[in-house]
């Protein structure tokens, strides 16, 4: 691998980790789409900052962009609080307004600068190694330095305020009663999302930031019941998607950031299908198991019901289950097979009898 290849993957890894961490809390707070809004409106902050300062390198641009992220959040909440507009619609109203303003300003006043629309929307990781800065005597890509700082800020914030974030996300009422302002925590998190979005969009573009933020968290949510692990898994999903996406892009000769986002999406689909408890496959298997179990219980109850009665000889014959329980012959056979293997029933001259265990199960279920 050339050093540029390594650098591009490093940038991708840092972006993925920096995005996945706040993303977990967005997913848990039901605010996933807010990250999409913020990642677009920070552009307005950058444009306004650029117009005021005249250069694109100033760290003040990040502050301006983060401020615009917070303005987006408060405007959305203001609209929502009028009770005339629902939360999702409020996001849909605020973010295109601010974003289109940014697009107009760019096309009118900032033509020809690095702020071209393609780069903003999609980012261009392939060029990231060309834009370098000196850091501690080392020449590193600008994106890498920037996102490393953002990642450190995110790690520090979440480590410091882990318990506050958890409490305010799970039970905002108690957080407030205990004196932890949920509003402060909320805006702290939104500031984090804004700063992350600014840093990340330089590398991967504003459209794909949401994929790096939300998708790993949504996938990790399916894999675990513990918040700490959810954070870890989200980072791992983001990282795996980044590396996999990079090589897929090389192979397909396609846009790197898009390929990374696609790979993260594929990993999410894997989680959705294969997650041990909550995955679709696990759910289907559970349903199937329950269906067989229910059928066996039904059989024991049917046998118990007719036990010792004159018609038992007819009712409890294997070939009559199909008429009496309206079971397909093949299904009936399988249920009987399973129930016999499970020791619930036995076959005595062509008709079925309950074992002690089978009787117990039937009685238990009738009582419940």
């Amino acid at each position, binding site marked *: 691998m050339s050093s540029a290849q390594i650098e591009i993957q490093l940038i991708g890894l840092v972006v993925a980790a920096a995005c996945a961490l706040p993303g977990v809390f967005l997913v848990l707070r039901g605010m996933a789409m807010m990250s999409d809004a913020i990642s677009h409106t920070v552009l307005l902050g950058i444009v306004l900052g650029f117009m005021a300062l005249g250069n694109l390198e100033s760290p003040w641009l990040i502050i301006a962009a983060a401020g615009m992220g917070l303005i987006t959040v408060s405007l959305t909440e203001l609209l929502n609080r009028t009770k005339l507009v629902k939360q999702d619609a409020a996001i849909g109203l605020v973010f295109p307004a601010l974003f289109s303003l940014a697009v107009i300003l760019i096309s009118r006043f900032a033509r020809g600068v690095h702020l071209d629309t393609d780069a903003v929307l999609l980012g261009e990781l392939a060029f990231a190694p060309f834009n370098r800065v000196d850091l501690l005597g080392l020449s590193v890509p600008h994106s890498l330095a920037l996102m490393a700082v953002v990642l450190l800020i995110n790690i520090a914030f979440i480590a410091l305020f882990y318990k506050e974030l958890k409490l305010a996300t799970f039970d905002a009422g108690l957080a407030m009663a205990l004196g932890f302002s949920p509003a402060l925590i909320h805006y702290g998190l939104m500031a984090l999302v804004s700063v992350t979005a600014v840093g990340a969009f330089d590398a991967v573009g504003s459209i794909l930031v949401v994929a790096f933020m939300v998708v790993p968290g949504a996938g990790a*949510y399916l894999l675990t019941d513990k918040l700490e692990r959810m954070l870890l898994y989200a980072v791992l999903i983001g990282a795996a998607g980044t590396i996999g996406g990079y090589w897929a892009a090389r192979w397909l000769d396609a846009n790197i950031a898009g390929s990374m986002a696609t790979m993260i999406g594929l990993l999410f689909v894997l989680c959705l299908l294969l997650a041990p408890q909550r995955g679709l496959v696990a759910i289907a298997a559970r349903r199937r198991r329950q269906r067989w179990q229910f059928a066996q219980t039904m059989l024991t109850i049917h046998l118990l019901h007719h036990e010792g009665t004159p018609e038992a000889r007819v009712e409890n014959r294997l070939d009559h289950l199909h008429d009496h329980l309206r079971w397909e012959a093949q299904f009936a056979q399988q249920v009987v097979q399973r129930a016999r293997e499970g020791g619930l029933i036995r076959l005595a001259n062509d008709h079925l009898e309950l074992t002690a265990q089978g009787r117990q199960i039937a009685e238990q279920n009738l009582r419940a």
Partner: protein
Amino acid sequence: MEEQLAVQISDLTVAYQEKAVLWDVDLDVPQGILMAIVGPNGAGKTTLLKATLGLLPTAAGQVAIFGKPYVEQRRLVGYVPQRGSVDWDFPTSVLDVVMMGNYGKLGWVRRPGPTERKAAEAALEKVGMSDYAQRQISQLSGGQQQRTFLARALVQDAQIYFMDEPFQGVDATTERAIVELLKELRAAGKTVLAVHHDLQTVPEYFDWVTLLNVRRIASGPVAEVFTEDNLRATYGGRVSFLSAARKEAA
């Protein structure tokens, strides 16, 4: 000098956009009692609790906890919100939720340690949930969720407990466990204010009652205040059912 009141609410008015939910409520709660707050739907029972705890903005009035504003007395107050107010699919364990009761004492940034863990385990033991400490909270029944919340409030080690419908949708075992717990709290000199729905059990579970319907209808010892007249004033027309409940309770 008479003993200081646990909670003193005066002239409390709460409004949502100029529509009053509570009108000028006065309420004196002495120490060491179990008080039920009852009233029809929309009477403002939950609002009264939340406004007292500073969770809602108030239009007028004052709240004193042992003579001082709530913000100065947070450590003395334990809060059990309605069970349905949180997302039980949140990725966390029972023990972890109970640990949250420690957060107020810890303050910002400081992390819970072994002391807090022990307190949480002791509280779980008290509500009979020790076996469920590591259970993921989405796997709990309604009664177990309620006990988890109660354990969390116990960890707060408060003087006054505000409980929003602690008996709502719980099984008989849990209901008995909660009643026992309330009695223990009273025996330890604590004060409990609980929003309650089942009028029949008011005389059995509580010793004081507040009847609320936007304004305070009556408040005092159950024997004096829980009368048919007051109930009629609180609930309006549906008196026949009420008098039946009253007779059964008597």
